[in-house]
């Protein structure tokens, strides 16, 4: 029974919204099979993984805290992916942002520096991430080197650089040789939103970014040039939009937001600089961006869902002794499912009469 795909000219909005939910359902089915294969009771595992975290006020806060970096990075990546530029090195830009911002925290450590420190750190973090993101952009524009591979290679370089700093010059001398910096001063720490819990001011920043990004992408000429450059590069060129400027712009925005996420995480929930400051946020945010349909509000929802896979993974690790890799399997399956579900939206599947090869 040969089937064929037929492109739909007008993609129905209902389909665009339904696709992520179909993908989620498929992921849950695959997850159930995986739990069975691991000898776990799927109902019990799902309860621990996905239901329990939503019922507990503490983990609910933790969910919001974990979704914050995913949201910031994911919104930045939406700029890139809409323009058909493939920055997959957000993890590295996140690390460099954290390092740039932390430099100020360490330089002012133990001094009388005032409340200007934290804002300056955030700016430095964003600048650092943007600068690091501009490297693959420059290499692409100037030399035509694939931004996919260069941005990814720079992730390893950034992580090794961070490792060097916290084991070498930036190590806390009174830290019993642990590879970590001193704990940041109060003026260099992202304040908590409430007395209790772990919700911090970075979440407010992320929400502001969502609002601004929604406006820029949806209502401005800049957003239009990004969209057009991605979907119809020749038309964009004829319309006078400069392809190179778009490349630099989207990489600066996504690198900057990843860097901001990095410094917020380090100056917030973590509190100092350590060799490992991310459980792969930069890569998970790629999934958040795709699942959220490259729309800031959609990414707001999807980053919450992906944060749930982190929290659930930690819970399952403790109570079911399941390896943390279960989370990666969920995330990978989710991305595969959303990519497949997209086809159902963009194409009609028809049966073909008679035999014809593909």
């Amino acid at each position: 029974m040969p089937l064929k795909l037929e492109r739909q000219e007008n993609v129905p909005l209902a389909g665009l919204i339904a696709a992520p939910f179909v993908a989620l359902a498929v992921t849950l089915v695959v997850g159930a099979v995986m739990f069975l294969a691991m000898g776990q009771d799927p109902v019990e595992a799902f309860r621990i993984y996905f239901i329990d975290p939503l019922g507990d006020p503490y983990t609910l806060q933790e969910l919001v805290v974990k979704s914050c970096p995913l949201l910031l990075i994911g919104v930045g990546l939406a700029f890139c992916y809409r323009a058909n530029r493939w920055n997959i090195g957000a993890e590295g830009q996140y690390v460099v942002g954290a390092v740039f911002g932390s430099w100020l925290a360490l330089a002012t450590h133990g001094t009388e520096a005032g409340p200007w420190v934290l804002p300056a750190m955030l700016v430095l973090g964003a600048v650092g991430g943007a600068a690091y993101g501009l490297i693959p952009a420059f290499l692409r524009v100037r030399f035509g080197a694939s931004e996919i591979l260069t941005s990814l290679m720079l992730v390893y370089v950034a992580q090794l650089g961070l490792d060097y700093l916290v084991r070498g010059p930036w190590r806390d001398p009174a830290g019993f040789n642990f590879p970590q910096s001193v704990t940041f001063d109060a003026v260099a720490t992202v304040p908590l939103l409430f007395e209790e819990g772990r919700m911090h001011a970075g979440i407010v920043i992320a929400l502001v970014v969502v609002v601004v990004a929604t406006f820029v992408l949806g209502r401005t000429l800049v957003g239009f040039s990004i969209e057009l450059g991605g979907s119809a590069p020749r038309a964009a060129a004829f319309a006078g939009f400069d392809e190179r400027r778009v490349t630099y712009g989207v990489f600066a925005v996504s690198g900057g937001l990843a860097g901001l996420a990095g410094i917020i995480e380090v100056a917030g929930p973590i509190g100092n600089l350590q060799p490992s400051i991310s459980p792969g946020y930069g890569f998970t945010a790629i999934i958040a961006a795709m699942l959220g349909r490259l729309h800031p509000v959609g990414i707001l929802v999807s980053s919450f869902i992906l944060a749930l896979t982190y929290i659930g993974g930690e819970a399952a690790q403790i109570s079911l002794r399941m390896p943390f890799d279960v989370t990666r399997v969920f995330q990978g399956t989710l991305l595969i499912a959303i990519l497949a579900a997209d086809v159902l939206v963009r194409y009609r599947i028809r049966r073909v009469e008679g035999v014809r090869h593909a």
Partner: protein
Amino acid sequence: MLDTVMIGAVLASVVAAATTLLIASLGELVAERAGTLNLGVEGMMIIGAAVGYATAYSSGSLLLGTLAAVLAGMALSLVFATLTIWLAANQVASGLATTILGLGLAGLIGASFVGTRLDAAPALDIPGLSDLPILGKVAFGQDAFVYASVGLLVLVTWGLARTRIGLILRAVGESHAAAHALGHPVRKIRTLAVMFGGACAGLAGAHLSLAYTPFWASDMTAGRGWIALALVVFSAWKPLWLLAGAYLFGAVSILQLHVQGFGLGIPSQLLSSLPYLATVGALVLISAMKRGQGAPASLGVPFVPDR
């Protein structure tokens, strides 16, 4: 004295490091010449390493382990093929998904084997030749994977350039519409090419966990899949250049280890980052010189037959 034994040992480890890269990049080259950019090499390689190790450890047979690794890489490549070739999904995103899924599955499979060890795949000395000074052991006293990588290189070079299948595969990669109009089954050919890439990545993973470092560690591929992808660009899609690239990168990654051993006061992290920096440098250099020449014209473009 930096004697001949020492030099021989260093060269032999360069060959071992290069072999992983050569096998994986040969597979990816075939997939790309057919027009599909599969960024899932890292994932297919690590699932090969995990499944290969688990099978070899449980069965006691390296051959069985290697076969299982090849099949595992191929199975994961089918996920990518289904998404991109049959469902016309974006190739970059699908490749990333393949890598993420592969890393996760490999972690699950390998979890119960952490801390175990295997006897590495034995060196197969070629009688007479392996007794030659210095280069004897380097060229003729290696494990089966090294010989297989050379065989694979010959097969791919000859197959792409001199056979009918190779010609059709290249036609599909250059212009899928024209190949389709001539009656070639574009999507089937691409699927087979991607599966070949998956098999090679799985084999490269088996080389890692069964011969090069005969144990399982999570994330043990450490970006080698990505470097293999970069090597394909570096080679300008010509198999013989992969040989040069793989050995160059093998040398960089081994030499930085030895420099770390000497302890010249250079931070070890800087040395460890050299292979990645060299990859960026090589990509820039080759892109600046060639400006995209040599890339298959239909690379990365999904094919949806209109009739």
